[in-house]
């Protein structure tokens, strides 16, 4: 395997008195989608937020392309090329869709060709371009949240449960957009509970339990082994749909 784009070495993260991450070792290969799976509350979101610097690793290292970013402030991590789509979407409701996108383009004006690509992936954003983001539906807000990360090329995308609570039609739109992003050679670390999406998009997979990585390997291997799913996550993920 080539050098990983992201590597976590023995990362421990506490939130208040709770020890959430308890020695996470994880590698995200360059190019392709790495699924981060596990039951609720095992530390998936905390892992992404620790990489972004929202929560600080107490011990351990976070390496982006070999560079230690463990103690860097969040804005510096973002400018190092990490795009983040949080679980709560983090859109700015008081701003228009256009203003949300302008803000996401940190390095300058939005590239028109890239914007057209974003519009082709998420047509509603073009329709509501001048509208307030707060007036969008849940699915459209999620589209905007992902579109903000996509508006500029990033070295790594951290995406937290983009299909959570969405209708199947919208999930399909999301999956198509993420596949296009992957086909462009992007590296994506994707937290996802929807196994159909995980199976369709994932190249590699990391499973967490109790604040640690308990398994990592090819997504295809996990997808075809119901016994492994049962052992790692307590039930077959097909049954989870």
């Amino acid at each position: 395997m080539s050098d990983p784009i992201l590597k976590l070495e023995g990362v421990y993260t506490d939130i208040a008195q709770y020890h959430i991450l308890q020695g996470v070792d994880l590698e995200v290969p360059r190019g392709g989608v790495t699924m981060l799976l596990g039951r609720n509350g095992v530390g998936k979101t905390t892992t992404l937020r620790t990489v972004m610097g929202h929560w600080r690793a107490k011990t351990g290292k976070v390496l982006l392309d070999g560079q230690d970013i463990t103690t860097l402030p969040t804005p510096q991590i973002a400018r190092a090329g990490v795009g983040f789509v949080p679980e709560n979407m983090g859109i700015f409701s008081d701003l228009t869709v256009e203003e949300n996108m302008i803000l996401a383009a940190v390095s300058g004006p939005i590239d028109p060709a890239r914007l057209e690509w974003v519009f082709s992936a998420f047509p509603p954003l073009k329709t509501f371009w001048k509208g307030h983001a707060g007036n969008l539906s849940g699915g459209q807000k999620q589209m905007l949240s992902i579109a903000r990360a996509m508006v500029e090329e990033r070295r790594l995308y951290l995406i937290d449960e983009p299909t959570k609570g969405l209708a199947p039609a919208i999930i399909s739109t999301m999956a198509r957009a993420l596949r296009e992003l992957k086909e462009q050679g992007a590296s994506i670390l994707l937290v996802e509970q929807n196994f159909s999406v995980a199976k369709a998009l994932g190249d590699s997979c990391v499973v967490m339990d109790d604040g640690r990585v308990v398994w990592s390997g090819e997504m295809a291997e996990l997808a075809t082994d119901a016994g492994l799913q049962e052992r790692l996550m307590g039930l077959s993920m097909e049954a989870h749909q």
Partner: protein
Amino acid sequence: MSAAPKHAPTMAKMSFADKIGPWLPMLLVPAIMVLGLASIPSMSSWLTLTVSGLAMGMMIFIMASGMTLVFGLMDVINFGHGVFISVGAFVGVSVLMVLASMTEAPSLVLNLLAVLLAIIAAAIATGGLGWAFEKVIVKPVYGAHLKQILVTMGGLIVVEQLIVVLWGPEEIYILRPQALQGAITFAGAALEKYRLVAVAVGLVLFLGMRYVLRSTKIGLIVRAGVENGEMVEALGYRLRLVFVGVFVAGSALAGLGGVMWGLYQEVITAHMGQQMMILIFIVVIIGGLGSVEGCFIGALLVGLLQNYIAFIEPKAALISNIALMVAILMWRPQGMIPVVKAK
């Protein structure tokens, strides 16, 4: 996975109530003017009171606008904000005293130039003081409201005492520059020249702030930061720098407002900023935390209502602002144009 059906959303037609909803607070200002006109028998008195109310409102807006942004963006309750008003007034008046030859000259240009220089000096001094205040007093207590109240109040007392040390304990009486004294007559009403200048300055500052907040990237960052600072940082912007910038700008605006207010009252004291804080809090709260537009409307409402009520029923003027705040909060508990939800 099944293929997504064609997704072609369209804009829904908004009802009249939906369309007018966001503008309702804006309509309160003309509404209160019409009510004033109906309650005040003389047209000339109404005009005089209206200009006076607008001038007072504009000056309150200048002093309060920085505080609402600091409140909204940084979640900081700065009880020391009033000190920038006092320091601004003292620095500005000191400059005007030095420039006495300009203020006493019967030339509007020289008079306005002197006021402009005083305002610039006050804004620089209070901007610098704001920078130090944020670094020394506010920064250590981010996220702790009770501590913020205590230490910013303490900071206010310390700086007020420094003013007493530097300028003495007595109140200082001042005369406005010659060309800004007196009144002009319009439609039978006497309109003080200085109040007209205050209205113009307030309006220019409001439009300038609105332009910066609505049409520039730094404005976008500030507005987004008021709503979700963590996400702004995740996009790559150093919100801490924006915090400091807004605090400094807010302090400078308060200093500018202090000079304007001092010239309006024609007397300055070390405690003048502290005395203004009640009005400023009312304006910030009824406007909606973090909202410059809400702050502007709130300040105009306070200014107009206070002037009208003081004329119609002087005793009721004491409670008019509190009554206004109660009424607005019963109508819109988050303030007129809330940007930040109560935390």
